[in-house]
Structures are given as structure tokens and as C-alpha cells.
């Protein structure tokens, strides 16, 4: 396979102005990924700052209630900053520091990647600017304040649909203005090479830990691993080490919004086609003229019209399956896990919980499902209350 390609997908479709910047990043990463000191420092940050390894929790009540497969939850929500995003951010910010950069910029959807980046920047003493769709700054206002509290500058992006894709556009534009001292800390397994590979490598710690933990607890591999998919970083992290283990089903749960058969959806695999956007060849929601579709999901983190190129390949080869989950199903799962296990999952992760609720009863009691709880749901409480018609402030 050509470097930076996943089958036909991937590549580096970006303006010439950025080419030397991505090459510099690629060279730095190729060097530091094998550097014992870099590995040791990152490992130390994972253990002593982020709180890794995250727990693999047996959800006994949920298992009994659904009456089928045994359910384990990978608790990425317990990481520092409350989601899996910190895994990638610590890696990329440490890399930025080694490269001599003093400023980081990032896009964010739900705000989780922005919060993680602002956190890493505060820790490493770096300047930090976050680009966030205007609509998302409204539905995730708490995270905007968190980023500011951490010392970052947040730029609301009002172009286009004012969501994640527009935030990516604006961060790319900002990077073309200033590269010398600045690294774009991309938050998902997407964008031009080397980002899909770098982000996957920093997230694969999730599947590495799941494997060790499940072998320890059950002495066998799981039958299925479920994760939500927007750009696809938590899913890539949860799937990666299981790709060679053909007995493990890998299931990505996409945001169907009001339904994959309606225009109000963000289910890229279900409704998209091959295109080239945001630096990569992959699958995108678009019209016949290649205009990117204004996608929709209740979840700001999954509200993205594309998917990482490695997922597109895993879909083509059939190694992973992708299912659409609606807003209603996700909200139902959000409430279910809160009440059943006392764990409030992010609305993004709730898409994976929702599919587990359908899948588990169809499986036998000696089978095992692992759900990646990619983030915690505190940030979503106000939005879910609004969705349910509850007015929190009167």
C-alpha cells in the first residue's frame, strides 16, 4: 500500500502552502514514534496525568436486563478531561513540543477535543486557539467556558453550517497563515496524511488495553467491539488491535440524526459516496455535484459529513460493519445507561450503547460485547433536557 493510503482512500489533498508543514510533521512523527524517550514521556503522561489505563467495567445490571451477551464498558469517560480525545492530544502536543512549536490550533465539534487540546496546551505551556462551529458553541456552551478557563482562545465559526466541518475548514485556513510556530492538532482519524495514521496510533492504546483486560477477566477475546463513529477516532482506537482477530466483530455506530433515509442525517457510510475533501479521499455525504451536504445529528461530535479513510477501507473490505443510530435511539440509550449503571455517557457514545441494546439480546449469554464509552455525558445534560422539553432555568 502507498504511504498514507488505506486502499484507495487517504492521501494529501491540501493546498501547496501546507505541503511542507505536513511533511515536517510526517518526518518528526516517523522519528519520534520509535524514540525511547518520547515513548517513555508519553507513557508517563498517560499513566500519571490522563489516568490510564482506563477501566474495563462489567455492566452486570445492563447485561441481566438485556438478557443476552455479557456487556463490558471501556471507560474512556474516566480519562482526564472526560473523553478519549486526551490520548491523541497528549501525543500530538508532545510531538509539537519536540518539533519546537509554541502554538497549537484545533477544531472541535462537541468541544471534547477542544477541551483536551486546551488542557494539553496549558500543561505544556503552549498558546492555544480553538475553532468551533457557532451552532456548536451554543449547544455546548459549557465546553466553551472550560476551554477559556484553560487559557485557550475560542473562535466561533459562522460560515457554512456552523458545525464541525466548518470548524475544520477554518482551522486549515488558519494553519495556512501560520505554520512556523504552529501545529494543527487534528482531533480525528481524518485529514491529510499523516494525521489519520498519527491519531490512530495515539488512540490504539484503547484496544491494546481492552485486549489485555478482557483476557485477564474472561480469558478470551470479545465477540464484538462497538464504538460510535463521526470522524472515527475512538472507534479506530477501539478496533485497531482486534483487526487481525477475525472472530471479533467490529461495529461502528453512525449518527443517523432523524433517520438515515431522511436529509437530517450524518450517517456517512449509510448515505455517502467516495469523494475528496478535508485533505483525504474517503466517503462523504454530498450531492451529485460534489457539494458537501449539510448534515445533522443531535450529537455535535458526530455531526460530520465524512469518515476517516481507514474506516472507509474497513467498510469496503467488510472487516468492520457500520450501523446508523437515530437521535431518539441515542437519547434513549443515554437515559438507559444513566439509570441502569449510574454512568452518564456522552451523547456520542450513547450511539454505541443504543446498538448494544439491540444486539445483546440476540446473542447468547456466553458471548461478550465491549462498548467503548468514549466520553462522559455531563456536557450533554442541558441539551438532552432541551430535547426532552425540560426547561432547566425557570
Amino acid at each position: 500500500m502507498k504511504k498514507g493510503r488505506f486502499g484507495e482512500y487517504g492521501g494529501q489533498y491540501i493546498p501547496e502552502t501546507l505541503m511542507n508543514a505536513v511533511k515536517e510533521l510526517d518526518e518528526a512523527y516517523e522519528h519520534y514514534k520509535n524514540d525511547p524517550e518520547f515513548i517513555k514521556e508519553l507513557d508517563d503522561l498517560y499513566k500519571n496525568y490522563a489516568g490510564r489505563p482506563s477501566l474495563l467495567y462489567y455492566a452486570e445490571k445492563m447485561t441481566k436486563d438485556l438478557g443476552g451477551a455479557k456487556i463490558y464498558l471501556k471507560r474512556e469517560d474516566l480519562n482526564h478531561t472526560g473523553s478519549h480525545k486526551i490520548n491523541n492530544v497528549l501525543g500530538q502536543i508532545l510531538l509539537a513540543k519536540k518539533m519546537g512549536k509554541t502554538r497549537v490550533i484545533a477544531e472541535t465539534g462537541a468541544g471534547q477535543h477542544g477541551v483536551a487540546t486546551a488542557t494539553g496546551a496549558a500543561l505544556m505551556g503552549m498558546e492555544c486557539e480553538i475553532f468551533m462551529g457557532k451552532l456548536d458553541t451554543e449547544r455546548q456552551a459549557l465546553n466553551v467556558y472550560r476551554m477559556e478557563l484553560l487559557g485557550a482562545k475560542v473562535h466561533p465559526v459562522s460560515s457554512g453550517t456552523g458545525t464541525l466541518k466548518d470548524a475544520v475548514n477554518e482551522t486549515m485556513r488558519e494553519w495556512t497563515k501560520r505554520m512556523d510556530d504552529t501545529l494543527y492538532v487534528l482531533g480525528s482519524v481524518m485529514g491529510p496524511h499523516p494525521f489519520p495514521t498519527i491519531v490512530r496510533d495515539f488512540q490504539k492504546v484503547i484496544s491494546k488495553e481492552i485486549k489485555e483486560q478482557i483476557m485477564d477477566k474472561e480469558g478470551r477475546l470479545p465477540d464484538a467491539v462497538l464504538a460510535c463513529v463521526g470522524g472515527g477516532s475512538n472507534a479506530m482506537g477501539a478496533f485497531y488491535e482486534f483487526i487481525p482477530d477475525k472472530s471479533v466483530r467490529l461495529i461502528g455506530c453512525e449518527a443517523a440524526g432523524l433517520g438515515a433515509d431522511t436529509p437530517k442525517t450524518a450517517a456517512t457510510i449509510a448515505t455517502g459516496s467516495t469523494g475528496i475533501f478535508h485533505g483525504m479521499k474517503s466517503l462523504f455525504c454530498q450531492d451529485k455535484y460534489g457539494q458537501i451536504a449539510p448534515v445533522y445529528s443531535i450529537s455535535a461530535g458526530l455531526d460530520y459529513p465524512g469518515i476517516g479513510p481507514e474506516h472507509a477501507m474497513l467498510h469496503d473490505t467488510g472487516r468492520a460493519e457500520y450501523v446508523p443510530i437515530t437521535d431518539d435511539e441515542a437519547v434513549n440509550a443515554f437515559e438507559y445507561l444513566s439509570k441502569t449503571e449510574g454512568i452518564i455517557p456522552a451523547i456520542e457514545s450513547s450511539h454505541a450503547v443504543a446498538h448494544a441494546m439491540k444486539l445483546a439480546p440476540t446473542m447468547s449469554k456466553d458471548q461478550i460485547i465491549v462498548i467503548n464509552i468514549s466520553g462522559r455525558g455531563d456536557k450533554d445534560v442541558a441539551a438532552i433536557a432541551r430535547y426532552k422539553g425540560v426547561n432547566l432555568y425557570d
Partner: protein
Amino acid sequence: MTKISDAFKNGKAFIGFITGGDPDIETTEKLLYTMSESGADLIEIGIPFSDPIAEGPVIQEASERALAAGCTTDKLFDLVAKVSPNLDTPIVFMTYINPIYTYGKEKFMSKCKECGIQGIIVPDLPYEEKDELTPECNKYGIDLISLIAPTSHERITMIAKEAKGFVYCVSSLGVTGVRSEITTDISAMTDLVRKATDIPCAIGFGISTPEQAKKMSADADGVIVGSAIVKIVAQYGKDSAEHVAEYVRSMKEAIS
């Protein structure tokens, strides 16, 4: 039919950009004639894209207006087919890789040839990925214009050696848009281009005033102006033709 090389036979070339279909197709048609008559040596028509990552706010907003008004790739092909036989100014398309890829690369280039488009500028298709389009471009004789940037340095020779039509020198970091000052050492870039190729070299990004155009053209074979024209179209809409004409005349005069 006029070729890209013809654009550089009349002294320093003035290359004007408009967003196709902004505010509507009829105005674009008028602007093509007007710009040609007022001294534009080459015209770039932007096929609007929903997410133009190399553009500043002026062209972003123009793209949004054009798409909202119903502009499509097919409507622009029809327009060029109608206008190009009457124009002695060569026309190129500027758009992003996705509208070309999704339309069908082969179909896109064959339509370009059919309607008289001479070249295409694709800002998110760098040297490393140009094979995405070169087979189809070569088959239909459409020049794929190469861009070089202030950050290109050692890449300039490699890019210029394989360049077709003309080399598009990006004057500044960042996205398209009017700038009060351009600080890049342009002659260092164009010198490297000239050592590597005989094809002409034009400078774009940030140029808006006749003074800037004059200064920039000293180191190149032409200047490219986009946002400044699109701004006039944004201000005067359907009645922008005479204002654009006046502007194009002043710019061509400044570099002559």
C-alpha cells in the same frame, strides 16, 4: 480558439477571477464579455464549492451566494460553451478537487474540451496528488495549472519542471483575499521557476490596487486578481459590469 499562451503575448498579463453564478448566471455572462473587452488577458471562472478551504471570506461568501442562486457545474459548462466562441480571451476553471472527482474526472475534462476551457486550477491538488487528474487532463488537452507558495522553497523546481499553461505563484501565506501589504520575496520564487521552465509565471493572492499590480508584475509575467473583483460584484450585483470594466482597465493599464 485562443490558448493560455496567448494571454501572455500582450505585455504583462492581467488575469481576472470571478465566481461563476454570482449573483446569477446572466451576470456572469455579462462579466465575461466585459472583462474581455476591458483588457483581461485570461479569465478564471470559479466553480463554486460548498467548502472552499483556500478562500478568504470574500470568495467564500460569493460561493455561498452562487450555490444559493442555483449555480451548478453543468450550468457553467453551458455558459462557457455559449460564450467562448465569441471571446478572444482564454478561460480556465478554478475549483476544488471534489466537484471534479464527483462529477466524473473523464466527463469533466471532456466537457471542458467541448466547451472551450483551456485549463483548470485546483488549489487542493498538490504536486504529490496531481496524478489524480493528469491522465484525464492529458487526454483532453486541458492544462492542469500548478501552484507554488511562499513555503514551497525546494519544491519549486520539481513543481515548475512539470507545470503546464502557467505557474501560479501564491504571493502570501494564508487564504485568498485583499491584503494591504505583500512581504514575500517574489523574485526569489519566480527566479527559481524561470530556471526550471519556459512557461509563464503569474502572481496571485492579495493583489487589489494598481500600485500592487505594477510592483508584483515586475517580477512575473502576469498578475491574478480575484477577491477585489468579487468584492465589486458583491457590492453592485447584477449592475456590476461597468464597475468591473473600469477596475479591469485600471489594472491592465497599471501593468502595461
